[in-house]
């Protein structure tokens, strides 16, 4: 037990230093970082404009109104923000390390390699815009929705957000680990990120087979749709339990792929 506590403390300390280093990098390129903050805001304005046009002529789409969809967009932004902040950029960087033969150095470090490739820096570049989007979209939509939410619902919502984050992490980690076999794995991540488009909108608009596929084969609907729909009472709470099963399943697959990948890794260009 004491060993575990020491280990956690050590990794938290290491993570603190990595965050500090990332902050210093951001402040070197201040103007760039500030401009990057605007990119998510422009994306958000485009997405809200689309909703505005759609709801200009109808009150509901598949049982969802304008503010419910805005809330869904806000939750999507939150998950995206946390994921980009902590691991997506790092795992894309990991693929580049493998391509350029720089991964060998990581293998020599006295640290858990999986932890290091996933969390070696904090990507603060789009953070400003992401935080702005999340706060504006969620607070505005909640104030318009007038929801009566119990504390249990809030707990389930937060729990399902944690599940969403974990599912997203394991999916990105799993796909990026494929670079240990095929080197060029960036397009797998591109596909996954592009597929998150499905999660901006209510699952009810998709055909049955596609919905099933997006729930249980490529569980993208767990990112924002499931937590939002549970909170709004459009989906039963047990979907959060499905999420837990998917997390465990993805953890096992990604661990196997990672371990076999390390054995397979040939340090191509170093």
């Amino acid at each position, binding site marked *: 037990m004491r060993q575990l506590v020491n280990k956690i403390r050590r990794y938290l300390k290491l993570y603190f230093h990595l965050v500090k280093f990332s902050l210093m990098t951001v402040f070197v390129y201040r103007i760039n970082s500030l*401009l990057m903050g605007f990119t998510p805001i*422009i994306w958000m304005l485009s997405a809200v*404009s689309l909703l505005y046009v*759609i709801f200009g*002529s109808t009150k509901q*789409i598949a049982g969802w109104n304008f503010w419910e969809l805005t809330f869904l967009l806000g939750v999507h932004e939150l998950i995206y923000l946390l994921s980009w902040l902590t691991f997506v950029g790092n795992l894309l960087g990991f693929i580049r390390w493998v391509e350029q033969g720089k991964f060998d150095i990581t293998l020599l470090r006295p640290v858990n390699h999986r932890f290091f490739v996933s969390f070696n820096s904090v990507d603060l570049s789009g953070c400003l815009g992401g935080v702005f989007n999340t706060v504006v979209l969620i607070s505005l939509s909640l104030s318009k929705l007038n929801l009566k939410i119990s504390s249990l619902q809030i707990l389930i919502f937060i729990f399902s957000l944690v599940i969403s984050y974990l599912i997203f992490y394991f999916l990105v980690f799993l796909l990026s680990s494929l670079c240990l076999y095929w080197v060029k794995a960036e*397009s797998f991540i591109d596909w996954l990120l592009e597929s998150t488009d*499905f999660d901006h909108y209510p699952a009810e608009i998709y055909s049955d087979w596609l919905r099933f596929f997006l729930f249980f084969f490529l569980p993208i609907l767990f990112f924002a749709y499931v937590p939002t729909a549970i909170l709004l009472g459009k989906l039963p709470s047990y979907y959060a339990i499905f999420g837990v099963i998917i997390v465990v399943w993805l953890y096992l697959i990604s661990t196997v792929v990672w371990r076999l990948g390390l054995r397979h890794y040939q340090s191509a260009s170093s």
Partner: protein
Amino acid sequence: MGKYWAIFKITWQNAVEYRMEFLAHMVLGLITLLVMYFIWSAVFEGRTYLGNYTFSSMMTYLVMVRFLHFVRRTSPVRIIADEIKEGKISAYLIKPVSYLRWWLAAFLAERIFESILRILMLFVFLILFPKIFNFPGTFNFLVILFFIGISLVLNYLFNLLISLFAFFVTDVRLFRSTVIMACDFFAGSLIPIDLMPGVLKKIGLLLPFQFWIYFPIKLYQGDLTQNQIVGGMSLLFVWLLIFIFIVKYLWQKGIRTYEAIGQ
């Protein structure tokens, strides 16, 4: 002229070599199209029109957005900004070539190659989904192909303009992605400009970005009156002149301040 033709051919061969990457990029774009298909199916449920659009004309618009995606892509012009930043253009300046024409040749080769792949994609759509994708006739299609040539030059000039800022602010990558995202919206890639709310519609119809997506598609769909076509072409011509003027100015001013950092 011969030397730029040689650059064109080399870039073309390079594009052929990496054809799978182009194809993967194209197929990737189909995910967005699929999402849009479901969204607009839900919107059009129980109605025939939204503005002037039927479900089929909206889907044709969205398929054409995917087709025209290559017009607004920024590679390889974005390399210019990196070359300025890293001081690599020094190597070009001592050669008997125009740096800007060099990259124009490379840009056109890559874009024309991709346009052929995308035309094939359109034919696949036409064969597989004739009910949701309208083909208004060969003449309209030839008009759009001609127009794409002008749109490509406009895109080259606009991206060049952004890249040339690297002479003054060193790193323009994030500035570019922010600007391109805004331009993309005003090009009509997410919502047709004529469906945008009041002020946005007015702004969109004044800016040059409509000529990447919205205007060519409207020409293709045969939705523009003669006056609108003449007005649009005049506006395009004005924007081309403005861009040429700014690019020339930035290049001349930039090359004087250039310090070949890193060389």
